[in-house]
């Protein structure tokens, strides 16, 4: 479908017009190509044709019975189709009449009035639901009083359901959950859960894609109900602020307020969303939003201040500290949640205005090892492929990524491929959703990935499954790897990882045998003291089998925040200017010095954890934080707090008061994504433009405006009268990766955006990397030795704790925990543990358990589950009141300086019911 070019073309006649389409196209697709609309209720391009609603009936000469469904019938050469004859129109009107005969005609009060396909077709075809049944016999409703609104997100009104089945199919075919299906027969048929239980007791994950796809008012979000219908609000398309997928969403704006949200058709998500993207935007209107600058007074309390007062104070203190202690006594954290333009401005401010390279951000905590590792192996540290290429992948190796919870829309693409026959291999210590669906699940011990990967590669080599041609032509350093792999027969890998040797063999064969195999990984790989080793092993595996540098096959680190790719691209890293140009490279530095008219430091700055350590040591005196919350997100929080408290001056710029801003000397209110414009770069390197939906609350300002204002006050003018578009032009001038990017181009083709590298204005962007040649020339193999995690269980701390995200919350919970539905659905944190460990600790499911590591102790609720190995526990890190990161280890990977958030040793004790942290 996507790239299989040169398919046989065929010609047919539709409404006396000759249409040429590729073989395999349906009559509906052929009509669409010719600009002829055919009504549909059950059809959707993401779904297998259903043919159920009978709205797309068209006349075809010579067809049995004359009428066929356009959605399901393949176009055939010479076919003569008529889509709008009297007979066709009568058929459609009759079908509508039948549907309306048992549909509650309550359009006056229905939320979907004005955006209801059934209503639109009824209008177009003049169907009123009375004609066909005979006015004398209005049939009774068959599914009345079947409204289920027990969950936190949406209402199901089965009386309005026309049984088109789109919701059933998207849930099963695309999302892979199958939470709902048709039950009963005849007039009693309805769509519901197994055993008709309320939806929250089913396998539903509330992605809301069923709502998006529903043609009537049968499924309605709770948010926004009775606040306005489609013709009463504006739909403002923007990019979701949560994970790195970069889905397009619509914010519903009425009278300057965001009253709701829905899915938008975007290049990365094709109108799919997850629960956060669909329902998690109500915090925009939260009364808790910061709306005025705050300054910590003599009394130690924060008080309101004017912008002038606040910025003057910030400028004065930063200049004082710089002048007194040198520029490197100041550090800044930019943000993976603000725009490219803002990150660019921030790092320019730190480098050019203050003179330090001490700029970093939370990418350090997620994919620093990717950026470092893949740069060494391939020359570029980003996802090699585009999400929708995965539709055509033959096999997936998913390691250290709980894709369905952290990147649900990418998971949907993978799931579709799996359902069409692609092999799925999952390596994860927990039985995550994909582990349960996988063909092969490898339950490795946390921190044993190098051994597992070396074991797989040993098998591939031993069984002659390596792509020797690719190795010879495209790579270097293989012999060293070969020698190292000899030390890792699967039996040894099994001993270290706990994965049976036979499973390692099966996985190796399945991966190596696939025509195009895609690796997906995430923090399970990167957040280790061996993070770079892990990443390089993955790169080894891909190169050894020739599974990189081509369509639908590659190495794909899934980025965790909406602009984590962009914030790295923009130079939010201590050693890099925008586009990964090096601060230590004289040519690169000279270019930026000339452009910024400032002298720049050639010394790479401090990374996040190094910065905090330096603060505690008294070397760093001032820190400027833009939109980050290290007081929840960073490891060893007790230490983080000590470090921040030891600073002379802390500035935090954010949309809410956070655990971090509560410690600040100055708090600056910023505009959220809904209130500004700019670009985000998602995980598939796609730069997407968005604009404001509403005005920022109170005096809150866009981050870039604040920084530029501040820059002037410290004596470095950064004026962009042309706004963010002008900033992007500057980025493009200085950054070859973004050389052809401009806001004007990004707006083209319904905001398709551009995927970097995009070196010049003519370049169409790059869907997959390393075609024909790696960014660094030859791919570099690395002989990687297994090293155990920094902290391993012992008698005192006998259990491993691993941490991660859950579907319903994002990062430190600043946004999601203020969203009504998400906050209520999962209101508190927990620890997952095996029954054996629960018994050892003397706790049962639902009891409170005290978790202690060498760094601290918290109390949380126990969830006793089966899908986790004895001796391993898991905690989500979103919950500040019982923060997992109190426990985690800040030991660093030596190269990437990423802390080992995924493995630490803890002790479990019963805390008594209802205990509190």
């Amino acid at each position, binding site marked *: 479908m996507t790239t299989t070019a040169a398919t046989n073309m065929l010609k047919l006649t539709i409404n006396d017009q000759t249409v040429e389409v590729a073989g395999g196209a349906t009559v509906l697709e052929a009509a669409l190509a010719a600009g002829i609309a055919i009504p549909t209720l059950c059809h959707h391009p993401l779904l297998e044709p259903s043919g159920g609603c009978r709205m797309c009936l068209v006349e075809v000469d010579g067809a049995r019975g004359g009428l066929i469904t356009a959605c399901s019938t393949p176009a055939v050469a010479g076919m003569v189709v008529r889509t709008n004859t009297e007979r066709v129109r009568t058929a459609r009107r009759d079908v509508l009449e039948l549907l309306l005969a048992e549909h509650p005609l309550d359009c006056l009060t229905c939320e979907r009035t004005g955006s209801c396909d059934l209503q639109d077709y009824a209008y177009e075809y003049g169907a009123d639901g009375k004609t066909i049944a005979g006015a004398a016999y209005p049939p009774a409703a068959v599914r009345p009083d079947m409204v289920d609104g027990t969950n936190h997100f949406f209402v199901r009104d089965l009386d309005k359901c026309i049984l088109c089945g789109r919701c059933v199919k998207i849930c099963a075919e695309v999302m892979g959950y199958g939470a709902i299906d*048709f039950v009963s027969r005849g*007039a009693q*048929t309805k769509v519901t859960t197994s055993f008709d239980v309320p939806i929250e007791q089913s396998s539903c994950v509330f992605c809301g894609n069923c709502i998006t796809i529903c043609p009537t008012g049968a499924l309605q979000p709770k948010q926004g109900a009775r606040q306005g219908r489609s013709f009463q609000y504006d739909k403002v398309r923007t990019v979701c602020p949560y994970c790195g997928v970069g889905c397009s969403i619509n914010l519903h704006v009425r009278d300057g307020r965001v009253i709701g949200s829905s899915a938008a058709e975007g290049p990365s998500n094709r109108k799919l969303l997850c629960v956060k993207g669909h329902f998690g935007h109500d915090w925009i209107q939260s009364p808790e939003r910061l709306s005025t600058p705050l300054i910590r007074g003599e009394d130690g309390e924060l008080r309101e201040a004017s912008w002038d007062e606040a910025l003057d104070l910030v400028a004065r203190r930063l200049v004082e500290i710089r002048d007194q202690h040198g520029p490197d006594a100041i550090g800044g954290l930019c943000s993976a949640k603000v725009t490219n333009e803002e990150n660019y401005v921030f790092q320019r401010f730190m480098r050019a205005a203050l003179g330090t390279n001490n700029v970093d951000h939370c990418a350090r905590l997620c994919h620093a090892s990717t950026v470092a590792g893949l740069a060494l192996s391939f020359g570029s540290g980003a996802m090699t492929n585009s999400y929708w290429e995965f539709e055509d992948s033959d096999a997936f190796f998913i390691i250290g990524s709980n894709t369905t919870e952290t990147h649900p829309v990418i998971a949907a693409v993978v799931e579709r491929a799996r359902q069409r026959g692609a092999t799925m291999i999952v390596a994860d210590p927990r039985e995550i959703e994909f582990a349960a669906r996988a063909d092969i699940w490898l339950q490795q011990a946390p921190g044993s990935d190098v051994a597992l990967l070396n074991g797989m590669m040993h098998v591939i080599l031993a069984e002659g499954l390596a792509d020797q041609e690719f190795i010879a032509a495209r790579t270097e350093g293989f012999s060293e790897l070969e020698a190292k792999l000899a030390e890792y027969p699967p039996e040894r890998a099994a001993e270290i990882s706990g994965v049976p040797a036979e499973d390692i063999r099966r996985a190796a064969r399945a991966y190596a045998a696939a025509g195009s195999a895609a690796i997906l990984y995430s923090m399970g790989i990167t957040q280790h003291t061996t993070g770079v080793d892990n990443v390089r092993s993955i790169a080894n595996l891909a190169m050894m089998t020739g599974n990189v540098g081509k369509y639908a096959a590659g190495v794909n680190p899934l980025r965790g925040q909406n602009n984590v790719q962009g914030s790295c691209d923009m130079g939010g890293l201590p050693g890099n200017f925008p586009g990964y140009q090096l601060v230590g490279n004289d040519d690169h530095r000279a270019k930026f010095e000339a452009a910024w008219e400032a002298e720049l430091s050639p010394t790479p700055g401090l990374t996040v954890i190094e910065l905090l350590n330096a603060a505690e040591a008294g070397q760093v005196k001032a820190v400027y934080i833009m939109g980050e919350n290290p007081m929840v997100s960073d490891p060893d929080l007790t230490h983080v707090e000590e470090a921040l408290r030891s600073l002379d001056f802390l500035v935090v710029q954010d949309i809410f008061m956070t655990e971090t801003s509560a410690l600040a000397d100055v708090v600056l209110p910023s505009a959220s994504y809904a209130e500004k414009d700019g670009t985000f770069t998602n995980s598939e390197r796609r730069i997407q433009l968005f604009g404001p939906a509403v005005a920022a609350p109170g005096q809150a300002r866009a981050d870039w405006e604040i920084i530029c204002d501040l820059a002037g006050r410290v004596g470095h003018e950064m004026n962009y009268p042309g706004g963010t578009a002008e900033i992007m032009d500057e980025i493009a001038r200085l950054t070859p990766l973004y050389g052809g990017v401009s806001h004007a181009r990004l707006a083209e083709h319904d905001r398709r955006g551009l995927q970097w590298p995009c070196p010049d204005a003519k370049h169409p962007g790059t869907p997959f990397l390393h075609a024909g040649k790696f960014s660094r020339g030859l791919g570099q193999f690395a002989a990687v030795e297994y090293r155990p995690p920094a902290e391993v269980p012992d008698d005192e701390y006998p259990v491993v704790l691993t941490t991660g995200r859950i579907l319903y919350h994002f990062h430190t919970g600043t946004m999601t925990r203020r969203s009504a539905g998400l906050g209520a659905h999962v209101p508190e944190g927990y620890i997952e543990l095996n029954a054996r460990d629960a018994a050892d600790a003397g706790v049962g499911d639902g009891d409170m358990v005290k978790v202690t590591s060498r760094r601290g102790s918290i109390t949380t609720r126990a969830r006793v589950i089966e899908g986790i190995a004895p001796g391993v526990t898991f905690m989500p890190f979103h919950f500040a009141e019982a923060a997992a990161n109190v426990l985690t280890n800040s030991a660093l990977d030596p190269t990437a300086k990423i802390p080992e958030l995924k493995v630490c040793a803890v002790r479990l004790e019963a805390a008594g019911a209802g205990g509190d942290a």
Partner: protein
Amino acid sequence: MVPASSPLKMADISAFRRRCEDQYQLLPRQALVLVGLGTCGLAAGGDPVAKALREQLATEAEAVATADLEVEVRATGCMGMCEDEVLVDVVRPGMPRITYGHVTPEKARRIVSEHLIGGRPVDQWVLGQITDEDRPYAGNVVFDKQDRIVLANCGFIDPEKVEHYVARGGYAGLERVMSSMSPAQVIEEIKASGLRGRGGAGFPAGLKWEFAHKAPGDKKYIICNADEGDPGAFMDRSLLEGDPHALIEGMVIGAYAIGADEGYIYCRAEYPLAIKRLKIAIEQAKGLGLLGADILGTGFNCELHIKEGAGAFVCGEETALMASIMGERGMPRPRPPFPAQRGLWGRPTNINNVETWVNVPRIIARGAEWFASIGTPNSKGTKVFALTGKVRNTGLAEVPMGITIREIVFEIGGGIQHDRKYKAVQIGGPSGGCIPESLIDTPVDYDSLIAAGAMMGSGGMVVVDEHTCMVDLARYFMSFVQSESCGKCPPCRIGTRLMLECLERICAGEGKMEDLGWLERMGQRIKDYSLCGLGQTAPNPVLTTLQYFGDEYLAHVQDKVCPAGVCPALVSYTIVADACTGCTRCVRACPVNAISGKVKEPHVIDAELCVKCGACFEVCRFDAIVRGAAAAAAAVAGGAAGEGTATSEEVTGE
């Protein structure tokens, strides 16, 4: 048992067949008692009869020995005379095979003593005799009109013994195919035979095989549709119970022809005996190397699985059936793609029904020419019908295509029960239609039936007499299809519901004249717009009854009369005082105490209380109870009784 120590190779099969024949052939001193133990026989009490036979033989062991007899009691499948179950056949050396009907355990004991041991058939229970197994009951019109190709083994072999099947020519077709025919030749043979699908639509089987054969793909499937769901149809059940190896042989031949190596038999779970016997047969065939890996040592593999259906009528539709096999809800999908292109798990798949598959080994063994000589130019071979309803001889009948309805109903079926008046035959189940008496000489073949507005369907044939209300019959079928609609497409789900509600109103006396035209239009719409065969044919019973029995609809709507006296709201029972003797039988029969009166004086029915069940009408010996339209009956009662207080309201009400 003939020992089958190891799987057979092609070279072994002749020797094996001879051993089977030896076993099947009775020796001079061997006697045989056959008991019909299909579902029909079991339901009529076959098990106790078989037990009684064995007990009696044991009791009289000495006498048996004295008579120099060796007796085998054999369970066999349905002979087709379901009406006369329990059937017991006795084959005594030197005597023809004698069939007894309505056998009870007591009768069974007497049959053993008198016939088997004594050599004197118990004449009063004899149904007939068989001298030639190929022409059973020669001289009996019920069987003379039949041509038993498909049912050839039913009632003769023990379906749990593969040796019996082989002895009667079983697996000769497979042997011929595997030893001397290419897949293309097999397909040509089936095409030449003219075999059309026996599941209802009548698509040429050979052509269908050819599509699947030619479809690209390294993995293909075959399916047997044994989800027999039409009310009143039980042909497939009898075949599965009576001759399971014939199905297996047919499917293996088909698999070879199209290039499949795996198949499913989708059988409704309501057929436990059929499933049990299929399982036995599959194991036997695998043990003998006639199924499974390396069939007859040729390297050809074919595995068969049984998938039990969960009771949805729509799963008889092929795309829904495949969805059900794949573990999904049984809902049809549009074609194309046809199963031959994209079937089970997206692979080319060939689906035929039980009777079609069972024809295959017969055709291969005896040749396409032989098969094509039976039937009509466009409908070759035979068709098995399940004859039910108001006909005397209910059961299974296998007739050559082209025989007339009259021959089936009045010769094979023996005419109408109680010599009542024949009205119509409902043929083809809920998808079929009603053919009226005026068309009784319609030949039974695919095309003639469609021309008459009905269809062959799977072969259910319900005979209807004057006491059947055609509106009520149409209502019944509509309620069946409505409750079995999968709900996927609006015409079927909602259209049938609206039609059913309309028919219910008509039967309740609330119909209007415009309803009749509306029914016809709605029926046509459902046919035109529905996705699958269920919806496309659902209105047929209504449309054909409207066409042929419009006057009955008119009577319901215009006169508020149900001429057959079936629709409760349009019927009233009254007692003609002059004829009533006051015997009180009706009082005792009435379930709601609606009848009162003194002994030996005329009785009266309280119309308010009467539920119109007709029990009084059935028991009255003096024709004193009159059934008729509500109004007319009221007038009769009023006139006869002079006062008629009970019904005066109805009179004025009209």
